């Protein structure tokens, strides 16, 4: 059973001064899984995500990806292991066009010739042909999110970690993104941090609920949404906010 665990955290903690953002989290992810991470604002999801991708160095505990301890690594080294990463705040090359953005991702690992092919494939797959030559800075928010997803795809990752991929998208774009994510999941293991319950319903098999830096519950969508504690901390919280 343990052989196909591809990502694992052991007693992972992250403190910011007195704030304990992530508190001794043991988490594991199997190959080909599509895991959703949910939780109220400030639950520590993004901090957890940043520890996984080595953007933050954990205060204690470790992150192991494919038997490799990445706790002391740089984030480019994690990316080089074949991990595709999308942050919560959009991170794009605003002064460059869509094609260049995606090409820069593809050409990190692929040859120059192959990366041109990958770039056109990704653009076609995300239906970004019309804006191929547009500067990223001039695009609408939802389209920018799609391009960022395209950059993740172009790296041909085996593990994909996305922080709020649908933030600020229209309903239509959310549905399309759900389709894309299900398709990516055919060839890659995924973790998706999300807020939008409807979206999670569209994609999720297994859900991990974060609360105050700890895992409150893990289970499938029905179990989770039926759980009284989850209703209280998460759904209740949403209603009041």
């Amino acid at each position, binding site marked *: 059973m343990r052989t196909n665990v591809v990502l694992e955290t052991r007693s992972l903690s992250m403190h910011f001064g007195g704030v304990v953002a992530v508190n001794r989290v043991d988490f594991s992810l199997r190959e080909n899984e599509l895991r959703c991470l949910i939780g109220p604002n400030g639950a520590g999801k993004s901090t957890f995500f940043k520890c996984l*991708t080595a*953007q933050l160095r954990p205060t204690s505990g470790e992150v192991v990806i494919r038997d490799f301890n990445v706790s002391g690594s*740089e*984030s*480019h080294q994690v*990316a*080089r292991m074949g991990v595709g*990463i999308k*942050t919560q705040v959009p*991170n*794009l*090359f*605003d*002064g*460059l066009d869509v094609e*260049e953005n995606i090409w*820069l*991702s593809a*050409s*990190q*690992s692929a040859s*120059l010739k192959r990366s041109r092919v990958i770039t056109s494939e990704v653009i076609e797959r995300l239906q970004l042909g019309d804006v191929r030559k547009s500067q990223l800075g001039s695009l609408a928010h939802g389209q920018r999110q799609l391009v960022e997803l395209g*950059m993740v795809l172009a*790296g041909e990752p085996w593990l994909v970690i996305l922080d709020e991929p649908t933030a600020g998208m229209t309903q239509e774009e959310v549905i399309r993104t759900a389709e894309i994510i299900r398709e990516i999941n055919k060839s890659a293991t995924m973790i998706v941090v999300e807020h939008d319950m409807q979206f999670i319903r569209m994609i999720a098999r297994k859900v991990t609920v974060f609360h105050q830096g700890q895992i409150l519950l893990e289970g499938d969508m029905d179990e989770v949404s039926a759980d009284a504690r989850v209703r209280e901390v998460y759904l209740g919280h949403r209603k009041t906010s």
Partner: protein
Amino acid sequence: MKRSREINSLISIGIVGLIILFGAPLSLDLFSVISLTTAISLAILALSLGLIWGFGGILCFGQTAFFGIGGYAYAIAALNFGGSTGAIIAAVLVAAAAAAILGYFMFYGRLSDVYLAVITLTVTLILYSVIRRTSGPEYKIGIAKLGGFNGINVPPINYPWDATQFLYPEHVFYVAMVALLLAYFLCVWLTKSHFGRVCVSIRENEVRTELLGYDIRFYKLCMFTVGGAIAGLGGIMFANSIGRITPDVFNLYNAALAIIWVIIGGRGTLIGPVFGALILFYLTSFLGRQAVVNINLFLGLVLIVFVLVVPKGIVPSLVELWDRRKSRRMTARSARRMRRRGRSRVKEVQVED
């Protein structure tokens, strides 16, 4: 369309460069050729800053440090080696090494942009005050006395590997101009390469570039080192055109001047900074001769005007203006064509009638 225009402009730059290369010594008097050589050496410095700031996002406020190190290293090596060929190579390497060492600490220490600007400026100013204090005869490297604020007299360049045959000032001009052209096209090639495009992406967004798997520290270090080598080459040519290298190359005025060249010429282009340096060199030396306005005041004014009115710099603004005029002319032409076509259609209708 865009690509072919790029190639055209590169070809034109190459042709203009060759015309200056062969034409200037024939049509100018000796004094003008020498001052053009000086201007070209400064243009090489501007090019190096244009490369690392415009294409790597590295705001180095002390690019003159590597320029000066190149000049000094050349003078010291040429005196000790008794010839210039090896000295040129050594000086470029020394400037590159200085940039690499400083860059290593700055980039691998993950300094923020502001600290980077401050530290590079500080390094230059430290060099300025340290070398100014080396007047005594005890300050020497090999047989080369550092000479304090008087600087070092630089032996002229000689024919490759033949130290008995010195170059005349016209020939030093050829060397400087060829150096500028080579450095320019090296930079063009670099910015078009995969390496250069990754550097541009670092300028655009460091976090994203890192999350794509690029080690941005390494890319910045390489860019900075190449910039240091090119600035060093400029310093070598500068020392040769003046015949002397003094600590003044490291002063605050020159450090700021290099930044102003790039701002005026246009950040994000390579030819812009070259123009910026040439224009300001001739403007300030012209104004210096008139002695009507204070040059520092004038430079300050120019900088303010550019930052407020032409923030993109001369070259990008000219390109924009050209594009707008062209598109206006095209729309005017197509409107005329439409009108003509409309009229002829009216005629046809009448004929059918």
